[in-house]
């Protein structure tokens, strides 16, 4: 009975060390979801140390040692799998072997086996998919219980003389099985609690980060200025709870919130050397308030004592900074430090994205302008020739054609960012087709089938025009026979399909690649309605080309 108490007493010391271990950085590897090989090596050393400590803390019983060596080996196996368990068991076992005594050999073997038993429990839990149970104290209790029972059997089997072994087991079996099982259970429960704390910390962190991300999303889209900086500073100030938040561009303070707002005034030039350094060297500057103190350059009465300065960058070019401050007597939380850096990175990425979108739109507009400009002279020449020829034959028709021509050019003056209805687009295109029909006469047949309910469908202005122009310029103009252009608009479930088909089939390769302006038309539809809409191109060489505009049905 005394042995039980002494062992439990030893175990208490052991557990205190275990507790300290969970507070140390060596515990970090266990807080993740998976164990990379490097972390397994760390665990090997930690648990081997525990196993050896268990032997040293043991109590001599005759020639043998009653001990808590098993805990290290079994837990190593349980947490890290059979290989880690074996390795730790073998290390602990070899160490025991080196100490001598008539059970040295059997104890060496049995510790190795115990590590393996822990590993088998690990495998079993993984197979069942109950990974979380690895840190369940009951499982640890059971595993150690089984392992220790096996150890006793091994001592009986291997230790000689058998009579001594039997006598020893009689004395140590109950205390050791009990002490080791309970010890392992307590150890694992300490680890579980600590791990839980890490998880909870992580959850709080993620929640804050997500909230800030959600609230700042889109603000940067309006540009980087006093107004947007103030909005973002407000979100950061509220969510992090730091003493003050500032956002600067390269020269001046754009926004400031929190303590010291009386002398940190938006519009003022950047005062602190830390900020200038962060901008100059494009790196995070951290004055933690202990090793390095933040000293306000404006007012000696400033309550702020620590600061984190994170540069905001677009394309590797620093465009400003975000600064988080804490009061002199307040600790700068490492949580806030990580958050601050994360926010700056996120905002930088948002800025980059918006700048990219901006340039993309600019490019699109100018490309479109270019296409319009390219088309006009040739078309105009042809139209004027046709009209000049028609005048002598049919003056009123010539007048009608001139009206269509002027209608067409008036529409072409519209801004390219405008949205038009299908009706307006058709009107525009009809002027064009009327003139081309007069030019080609019998060589051009136009068939229109438009569902009148779809006339209100919204399209980017100039969607139809380039497609029809291609059908004339590269289709009908490039074939010997009669060109037929079919324009149809119909509803197909939740989508509206407007198709332009010709019977020439002469420009497949160009438009399949998005050429002849087709990728611009496609991009503009996608910008307006989303990726699942746009142009669908189908063609059979020498037979037909069909371009279908797919947009969502209204309402």
């Amino acid at each position, binding site marked *: 009975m005394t042995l039980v108490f002494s062992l439990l007493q030893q175990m208490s010391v052991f557990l205190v060390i275990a507790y300290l271990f969970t507070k140390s950085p060596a515990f970090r590897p266990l807080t993740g979801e998976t164990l990379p090989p490097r972390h397994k090596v760390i665990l090997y050393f930690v648990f081997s140390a525990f196993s050896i400590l268990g032997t040293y803390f043991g109590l001599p019983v005759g020639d043998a040692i009653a001990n808590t060596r098993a805990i290290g080996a079994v837990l190593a196996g349980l947490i890290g799998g059979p290989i880690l368990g074996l390795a730790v068991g073998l290390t602990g076992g070899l160490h025991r072997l080196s100490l001598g005594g008539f059970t040295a050999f059997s104890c060496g073997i049995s510790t190795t086996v115990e590590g393996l038993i822990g590993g088998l429990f690990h495998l079993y839990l993984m197979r069942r998919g109950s990974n979380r149970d690895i840190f369940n104290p009951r499982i640890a209790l059971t595993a150690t219980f089984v392992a220790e029972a096996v150890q006793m059997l091994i001592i009986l089997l291997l230790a000689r003389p058998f009579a001594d072994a039997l006598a020893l087991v009689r004395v140590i079996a109950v205390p050791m099985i009990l002490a080791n099982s309970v010890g392992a259970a307590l150890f694992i429960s300490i680890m579980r609690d600590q791990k839980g704390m890490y998880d909870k910390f992580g959850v709080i962190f993620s929640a804050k980060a997500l909230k800030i991300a959600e609230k700042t999303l889109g603000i940067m889209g309006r540009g980087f200025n006093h107004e947007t900086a103030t909005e973002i500073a407000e979100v950061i100030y509220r969510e992090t709870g730091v003493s003050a938040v500032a956002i600067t561009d390269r020269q001046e303070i754009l926004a400031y919130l929190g303590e010291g707002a009386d002398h940190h005034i938006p519009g003022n030039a950047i005062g602190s050397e830390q900020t200038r350094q962060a901008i100059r060297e494009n790196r995070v500057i951290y004055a933690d308030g202990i090793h390095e103190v933040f000293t306000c350059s404006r007012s000696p009465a400033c309550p702020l004592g620590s600061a984190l300065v994170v540069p905001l960058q677009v394309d590797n070019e620093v465009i400003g900074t975000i600064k988080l401050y804490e009061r002199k007597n307040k600790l700068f939380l490492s949580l806030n430090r990580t958050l601050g850096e994360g926010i700056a990175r996120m905002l930088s990425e948002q800025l980059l994205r918006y700048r990219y979108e901006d340039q993309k739109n600019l490019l699109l507009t100018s490309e479109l302008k270019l296409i319009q400009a390219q088309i006009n*002279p*040739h078309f105009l*020449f*042809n139209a*004027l*020739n*046709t009209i*000049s*020829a*028609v005048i*002598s*034959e049919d003056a009123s028709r010539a007048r009608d054609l001139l009206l269509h021509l002027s209608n067409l050019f008036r529409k072409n003056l519209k801004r390219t960012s405008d949205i038009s209805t299908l009706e307006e687009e058709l009107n525009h295109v009809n002027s064009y087709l009327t003139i081309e029909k*007069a*030019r*080609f*006469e*019998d*060589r051009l047949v136009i068939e229109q089938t438009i569902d009148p309910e779809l006339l209100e469908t919204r399209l980017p202005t100039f969607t139809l025009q380039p497609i029809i122009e291609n059908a004339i310029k590269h289709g009908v*103009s*490039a*074939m*010997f*026979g009669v060109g037929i252009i079919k324009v149809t608009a119909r509803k197909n479930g939740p989508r509206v399909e407007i198709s332009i088909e010709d019977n020439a089939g002469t420009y497949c390769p160009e438009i399949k690649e998005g050429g002849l302006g087709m990728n611009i038309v496609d991009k503009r539809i996608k910008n307006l309605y989303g990726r699942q809409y746009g142009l669908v191109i189908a063609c059979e060489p020498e037979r037909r080309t069909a371009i279908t505009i797919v947009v969502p049905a209204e309402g």
Partner: protein
Amino acid sequence: MIRALIIDDEIHARNELEKLLDATGAFSIVGKCANAVEGVKAINRLRPQVVFLDIQMPVIDGFEMLGMIDREIMPLVVFITAYDEYAVRAFEEKTLDYLLKPVAAERLSVTVEKVRDHLQKREHPAYPTPELTRIPCVKGGNIKLVPSDAVEYAVCSPAGVHVYVAGEPYFTDLTLKAIEERTPLTRCHRKYLVNLGAIEEIRLQEGGGAELRTRSGATVPVSRRLLREFKRTVGL
């Protein structure tokens, strides 16, 4: 009266030019064509003295069309264009004249003088024409452009000129002479041209002639008169 042919793919342009030409009193319009294929046919049949030729036409443009005309019957050519003035300028020295659409009557009178002048000199017009890479043919009522290097041989019969591709005959309005002048096909007989690359076997015959067997198994005669030169060409 000067016999003139109008080739333009736009009906209004044809009609208007016809009126303008009539008004000069110098021309009799022998025909109006809407594309290059019709144009070649009409030139071969009607032998106009001058052709008013639109440059921008479907599939075969004015320049390419000139390459389909026999040099012997090449008429004077007046190019017409709505734009692309620069393309004609590159051609200007070798061409008689060019007109810009819409055609102004005053400008046309200058052209009339040039045409008269030229016809009086009785100079034979020679225009630099590109190699003929495709031969316009009619098959089943449709116009087909046959790549010249795919042709095995061409034959002239009372039914017209046919080019043979993989054993299949294609009717064309081009003359054998025009094809000989501007494609790598070689004359081997008064009525035959052959693609040297398509010859599989040459069988010499008693009496001085020869017979060629082509890739697709067709037989092409080599006339006695041309055999010597033909042998030299193929390196025998």
